[in-house]
C-alpha cells in the first residue's frame, strides 16, 4: 500500500496555478512535486546534477580556449572528411547529430506508445533508439581513431593549441559514455516491456516493486538529456 501512495500520481490535492502554486507546493507537507512520481523527480534531479558536470567540462574548455596564446585548431577542418573525392567540412559530426536527433524522435514516440500500453511498438521503438545510439557511439569510435592516427593526444596535436586534445577527449568521451550507458538502459527496459512486465505488474528482481510504463518515460528523460548535451557540445565545441 505504501508504494501506491508513492507511485500513484493521480490523486493529488487541489493544485493552484502560477506562483501561488509554486509557493503552495514547496511549502506543503511531505512532497514538493505533487503530481510527479518519485522515480521521475529523482531522474530530473540526477539530470540537473549531470548538467552541472557537463557545464564544468564546457567551461574548462572555454577557459582553455580563451586563455591560450596559440591559435585553436579549426574544428571545421579537423573534422572534415573526403567522401567520393569531395572535401566536406564537419560532415561526420553533422551525420552524428542527425542520428542522435532521430533517436530522440523514436524515444519520444516509444514513451507515447508505452502509455497506450502498446508493448510491441514501445519495445520496437526503444530498440530502434538503442540502435541509433549504438551507431552514434560507433561513429564516435571512428572519429577518435581517426584523430589519434593523425597525432592528436591529450597533451598536443599537429595543428595548434595543445589543450584541444584534452578538451576533445574529455568532453566527447564523457558524452559517449553517457550514450553507451543509455543504450544499455534502453535495452534493459525494452526487454521488460517486450516481456510484458508492466502489463502483469511483475515485480522487479532488485527492488521487488511493481513496475509500470512510467519507466519508459524516465528512460526517455535520460535519453533526451544525452541528446540535449550533444546540442551544446555541437554548438560550442564543433561549430564555435
Amino acid at each position, binding site marked *: *500500500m505504501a508504494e*501506491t501512495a508513492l507511485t*500513484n*500520481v*493521480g490523486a493529488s490535492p487541489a*493544485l493552484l*496555478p502560477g*506562483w501561488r*502554486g*509554486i509557493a503552495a*507546493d514547496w511549502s506543503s507537507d511531505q512532497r*514538493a512535486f*505533487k*503530481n*510527479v512520481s518519485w522515480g521521475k*523527480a529523482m531522474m*530530473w534531479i540526477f539530470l*540537473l546534477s549531470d*548538467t*552541472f558536470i557537463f*557545464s564544468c567540462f564546457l*567551461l574548462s574548455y*572555454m*577557459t582553455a580556449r*580563451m*586563455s*591560450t*596564446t596559440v591559435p585553436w585548431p579549426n574544428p*571545421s577542418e579537423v573534422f572534415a572528411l573526403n567522401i567520393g573525392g569531395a572535401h566536406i*567540412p*564537419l560532415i561526420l559530426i*553533422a551525420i552524428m*547529430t*542527425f542520428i542522435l*536527433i*532521430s533517436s*530522440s*524522435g523514436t*524515444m*519520444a*514516440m516509444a*514513451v*507515447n506508445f508505452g*502509455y497506450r*500500453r502498446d508493448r510491441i511498438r514501445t519495445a520496437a521503438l526503444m530498440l530502434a533508439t538503442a540502435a541509433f545510439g549504438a551507431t552514434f557511439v560507433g561513429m564516435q569510435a571512428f572519429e577518435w581513431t581517426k584523430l589519434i592516427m593523425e597525432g592528436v593526444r591529450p597533451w598536443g596535436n599537429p595543428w595548434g593549441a595543445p589543450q584541444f586534445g584534452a578538451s576533445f577527449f574529455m568532453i566527447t568521451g564523457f558524452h559517449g559514455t553517457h550514450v553507451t550507458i543509455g543504450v544499455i538502459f534502453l535495452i534493459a527496459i525494452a526487454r521488460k516491456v517486450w516481456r510484458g512486465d508492466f502489463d502483469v*505488474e511483475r515485480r522487479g528482481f532488485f527492488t521487488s516493486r511493481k513496475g509500470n510504463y*512510467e519507466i519508459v*518515460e524516465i528512460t*526517455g*528523460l535520460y535519453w*533526451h*538529456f544525452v*541528446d*540535449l548535451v550533444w*546540442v551544446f557540445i*555541437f*554548438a560550442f565545441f*564543433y*561549430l*564555435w
Partner: protein
Amino acid sequence: MTEAAIHVEGQQSSLHIHAHEAHAPGATQAVGQQHPIKLYLIVWGWLFVLSACSYLVDYFGIHGHLRWSLILLFMILKAGLIVAVFMHMAWERLALAYAILLPPALVLVFVAIMVFESDYTHLLRIVFFAPTA
C-alpha cells in the same frame, strides 16, 4: 491478504488508466503525459531543420558575430524544443520546472567569472610568456 490487496490494486490502476485514456486528448495535467504523435513528429522535423541550419552556418563559412549569434540561436531553440516537448517540461507543474530549470541559469554566473579569469590569464601569458622574436 497481501495477494488480495495487490489484486484489487491492480484492478484499480487498470480502471484508472482507462478512465485516463478516455479524456487524454487535450488534458494538460495528464497523468501519463499523453500527447498526439503528430506533435512529436513536428518537433522532430524542426530539430532536423535547426540542425541543418547550424551545419550550414559552418558549411558556408559564416564568421564573426553573425556566426556566433546564429549558432547560439539554433542551439537555444533546439534545447528548448527538446526540454519542453520531448521531456514534457511544458506540461509539468511549475514547482518542478523552476526547481530544474533555474539552477542551470546560475551556470551563466560561472561563465562570467571564467571569462574574466581567462582574459586575465591570456593577458599574463602575452605579457610574460610571449615568444621572444
